């Protein structure tokens, strides 16, 4: 290798390495800040108690209402997004495999849906609520978040499915499999890691979004017991507490952020664990 190539190689190695590690550093910095700022307020009461009177002015209580509300909304919305998104992604890659133009148009539209700001989804959900005469409720939040995250499930899963070689598809059909068998027994299994990534991305986006639940799920200090009751969410709990003039309450906002981060981490690890078990079960 001549001198010029060595310099070029080193520069690009440094730049790409710098980009990668700075990203990790920023992520680590965010997590550290959240933990440092929220650590003092982090207590068992935060996760097992609902806000008592004067909680937002430094009174006693916790954010159990928001934890339950967030989990309800995120799980409910992710469930709906999987129900719609998984067959949609398989349909694009199995039934529409001959029709490249239709495939590309659908992908373009889904990308556009992915790019719409969540506040717009919130406004849309709010309009729907008014149309059906509903109040701010758990179900309205679930539906709005489901609308927000379904394009994520479809496009992420679709991206992985589209990389499956045509030869595997042909080999499966050549055995006499129907398209449904090909989709669910082969393509789904082949793209399973992408499916898990899609679900986790969607879940993370769903549980962390504040704008779309602001008008639709509402906010309450109570734990929602029914779908037509309003529900608090962690991002809104963080938002409300962070705007407080009382330093103690602002610290609690960071503690709530820690809880949100830990929930996402636990869900992510659990999903990866079950994904491994599922992959192993395909071999038995």
């Amino acid at each position, binding site marked *: 290798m001549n001198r010029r190539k060595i310099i070029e190689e080193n520069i690009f190695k440094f730049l790409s390495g710098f980009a990668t590690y700075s990203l990790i550093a920023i992520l680590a910095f965010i997590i550290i800040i959240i933990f440092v700022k929220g650590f003092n307020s982090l207590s068992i009461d935060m996760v097992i108690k609902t806000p008592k009177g004067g909680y937002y002015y430094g009174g006693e209580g916790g954010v159990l209402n928001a934890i339950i509300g967030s989990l309800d909304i995120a799980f409910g919305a992710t469930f709906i997004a999987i129900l719609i998104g998984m067959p949609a992604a398989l349909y694009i890659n199995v039934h529409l*495999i*001959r*029709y*490249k133009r239709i495939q590309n148009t659908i992908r373009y539209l889904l990308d556009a849906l992915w790019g719409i700001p969540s506040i717009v989804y919130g406004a849309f959900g709010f309009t729907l609520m008014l149309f059906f005469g509903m109040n701010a409720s758990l179900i309205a939040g679930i539906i709005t978040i489901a609308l927000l995250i379904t394009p994520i499930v479809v496009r992420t899963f679709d991206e992985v499915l589209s990389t499956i*070689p*045509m*030869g*595997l*598809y*042909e*080999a*499966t*059909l*050549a*055995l*006499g*499999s*129907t398209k449904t*068998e090909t989709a669910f*027994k*082969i393509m789904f*299994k*082949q793209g*399973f890691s992408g499916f898990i990534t899609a679900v986790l991305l969607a879940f993370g986006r769903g549980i962390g979004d504040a704008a779309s639940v602001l008008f639709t799920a509402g906010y309450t200090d109570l734990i929602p017991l029914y779908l037509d009751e309003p529900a608090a969410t962690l991002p809104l709990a963080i938002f409300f507490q962070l705007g407080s003039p009382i330093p103690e309450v602002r610290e609690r906002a960071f503690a709530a952020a820690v809880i949100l981060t830990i929930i996402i981490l636990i869900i992510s690890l659990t999903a990866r664990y079950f994904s491994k078990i599922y992959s192993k079960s*395909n*071999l*038995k």
Partner: protein
Amino acid sequence: MKIMHLQNNETMTEQAPDITLKPKVTPPIIKINNLNVHAGQHHILKNINLEITKNKITVLLGPSGCGKTTLLKCLNKLTDLYTELRVSGKIFIEEDDILNTQKNVPVIRQKMGLLSQLPYPLPISIFKNVAYGIKLKGVRDKKLIEYNVEKYLREVGLWNEVKDRLHNSPTSLSIGQQQRLCLARGLAVKPRIILADEPTSSLDPISSKIIENLFRKLKKNYTIILVTHILRQAVRLADNVVFMYYGEIIEQGHSKDLFKNPKTEKLREYMLEGN
């Protein structure tokens, strides 16, 4: 019974001279009439007329891009997957015109096993790969599936190599073993025909030899159509040869006659280059 026997004998005696005069002709398992394939303005296959004999190895020989693979894909209707391809003509498989039939496409496809250039094992265990084909035929009995998995893996000479790791991923096998696994999976749907599209092109010489030997053994029970551009492989395996060039059949016939006395300049050239 005696009367019937006598009547049969009488009929036999009456028709005996005819039978001895006529040579025994097996009807072709595949008959292709005026097959044309277009992709836009490009005429990929031009007026293909061909008969494939049962239980023989028919080699589709020719340079890359001459339409061999397209012809193979017409047979199991994989051309349906490509909107740009327009297929016309008739393909009779056991008297059934598959291009103009109302029959279910998967049923037609199960008459043929496909072996492609690269092995494409399914993303399930070695055992399940073969069991998948068996289950497609409606078999649900666990013991029968296990019996058949072993039978087909033995048929392709893979059983001894994989019997202790049946529940491993097929990606743990070598490419040659994966190709044989795909063959076993194909045999499990009980096809009558094996379509092989340059099945040894990605294999080492030893694995290629194993596949070639398998074909020689399998032709007793299956009709094999092998696409290749390797002249030596065609010489080694073919009973019948179809030489194609730019979408046309230039020459066809029995392997020995064709290679001994090529009638066209193109085949002569190809043989010269191939040697």
